[in-house]
């Protein structure tokens, strides 16, 4: 009995220490972001600033075109997520419910390309986009990301789990393929779709290398790219840098805490099926 209590206490201790390590960077980011420049450099570190300097956020916001970056990030995230959702639903339906020549070969080829690291695609895609004249435009940030093999695979698996008889029943009820997809399959696949949307939105909001490469002007940068250039401008003003970082991280944290069930379960399922 005592041993059980002891081992339980040990488990909590380890988990709590681990959690502190996980949360500390976030906490420290936030604390620093509301410090005065003097407090930032103080040793030993100040844990609770004397007064909360919220104006750091305002200052950081105005030092670089963060408003523009935010708008860009929102546009890119929303459009590429919505676009991917549509292409994924249509393609997953075709791969799971339609019978056509070359279906299995095509699907295998697509799965095979998932093996290739995205970095390999970088250069030819850059060339393609510059030939199209899309460099430094929204098209370059959005269009290459409007379809994802991974999402198609994930949704196809989900669709395959929906009984075939439903489509027969719908057909007899006078519901055509396209309508069946949107009125029956899509509502039923809601959990999978939410996962796909969330993972895509997070990935899109946080993506860095691609926006870095295809944007040139300040006006086209997304938040992460903007932040790296701001970090040079902010220099040693860490309170401003932390304020900016907080602003970028916060939306995803809020999204995460509202819908974490879908994210975590989605990752667990997608991961296991891999």
């Amino acid at each position, binding site marked *: 009995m005592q041993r059980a209590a002891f081992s339980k206490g040990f488990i909590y201790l380890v988990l709590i220490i681990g959690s502190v390590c996980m949360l500390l960077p976030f906490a420290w980011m936030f604390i620093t972001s509301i410090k005065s420049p003097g407090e930032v450099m103080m040793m030993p570190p100040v844990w609770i600033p004397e007064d909360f300097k919220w104006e750091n956020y305002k200052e950081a916001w105005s030092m670089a075109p963060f408003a523009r970056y935010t708008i860009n990030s929102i546009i890119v995230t929303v459009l590429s997520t919505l676009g991917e959702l549509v292409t994924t639903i249509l393609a997953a339906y075709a791969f799971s419910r339609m019978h056509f020549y070359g279906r299995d070969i095509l699907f295998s080829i697509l799965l095979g390309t998932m093996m290739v690291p995205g970095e390999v695609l970088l250069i030819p895609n850059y060339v393609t986009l510059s030939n199209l004249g899309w460099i430094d435009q929204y098209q370059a940030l959005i269009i290459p990301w409007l379809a994802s093999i991974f999402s198609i695979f994930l949704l196809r698996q989900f669709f395959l789990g929906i*009984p075939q008889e439903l489509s*027969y*029943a719908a057909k*007899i*009820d*006078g*519901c055509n393929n396209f309508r069946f997809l949107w009125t029956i399959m899509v509502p039923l696949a809601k959990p999978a779709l939410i996962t796909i949307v969330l993972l895509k939105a997070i990935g899109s909001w946080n993506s860095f290398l691609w926006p870095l490469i295809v944007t040139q002007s300040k006006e086209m940068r997304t938040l992460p790219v903007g932040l790296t250039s701001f970090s040079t401008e902010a220099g040693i003003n860490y309170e401003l840098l932390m304020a900016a970082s907080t602003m970028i991280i916060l939306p995803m944290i809020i999204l995460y805490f509202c819908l974490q069930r879908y994210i975590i379960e989605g990752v667990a399922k997608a991961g296991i099926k891999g």
Partner: protein
Amino acid sequence: MKIQLKELSMKFDDVLAVNGLNVHINKGELVSLLGPSGCGKSTTLFMLAGLYKPSSGEMYFGDTLVNNVEPENRGIGMVFQNYALYPHMTVLKNIMFPLKMAKVPHKKAEEKAIEMANLVQIGHLLDRKPKQLSGGQQQRVAIARALVKQPQLLLLDEPLSNLDARLRIEMREEIRRIQQEVGITTIFVTHDQEEAMSISDKVLLMKDGQFQQYSKPQEMYDHPVNMFVGKFMGNPPINMIPVTFDHKNLSIQINGTDEKLKVTSKLNYELVSGNQMLLGVRAEDFVLEKLEGISNSFSAKVDLVERTGRDTLVHATVGNHAIRALVNQDFVVKPSNIVKLSIRKNRLQLFDAETELNLVLGKE
């Protein structure tokens, strides 16, 4: 609506799932498609529904050829084995769905759906989701959804197989009641011969894609056209005893014994291929006596007596052939007793050992 199938065939790759089916179904009849799994009964149903395109042959609904008519335009309703209710819609929405697809105004659709729900006695469950219903209730919803468009033909694909034994009997009575109330031509797929016997006006029995027999259930039971039909119908299964036919005396001798029986039924001699035959007698058609000297009978040794309450099943051996006979419960017999068995008048079947066809002429 009357249905006519002419030389209907379905081929999947090299498998002939249905082979040259010719059937005529009268308006308002309930016909069971019966057979073991893989016999092509579901394929036939799916062709009738328009979900499969036949490889060859013709299907007529009324006088119209429907081979190339889309499912939704065939005027059919269908109930699936797993009911295929839309899980995210309420009962009412499920029943209304076909009307919605047909662009019936919402108000009218709702009225009709409620009317239909009342007919199948689920009027009090309209706001539930399918998951919150029992198997029998889901079944009723599926029937309501199938009937709401007032189809001319109702197709049921093994609708009772997912229910437990008690509910199965209740629902099959329900289906019969609803079918007769609506007066709709109905085709019912099942692998359970008892189910088919109890519910149908006519039974169509299939095996390996081949048509076997199409007749009234009692007729199929009393006069199976071949050994397969004889064996498939009835429980306990029909006794099949190898015999040798004596053309001169019109009698049969049970192989491996001296037991002889006179054949009084008229035989179709055109079908006889040799003198080897199988005597088919249903368990309840034997008459057992303990006395000697009963004419036209043979003797057998009792091995086992099973009492099931209502009646008694006697397992016995004649020569080296096992037979089963149902007798009245007050007939007292013990293992190792010798009994005399005779066969009720006109209740014996003789199957040709080679062609497996029934040689006894039917009533016609």
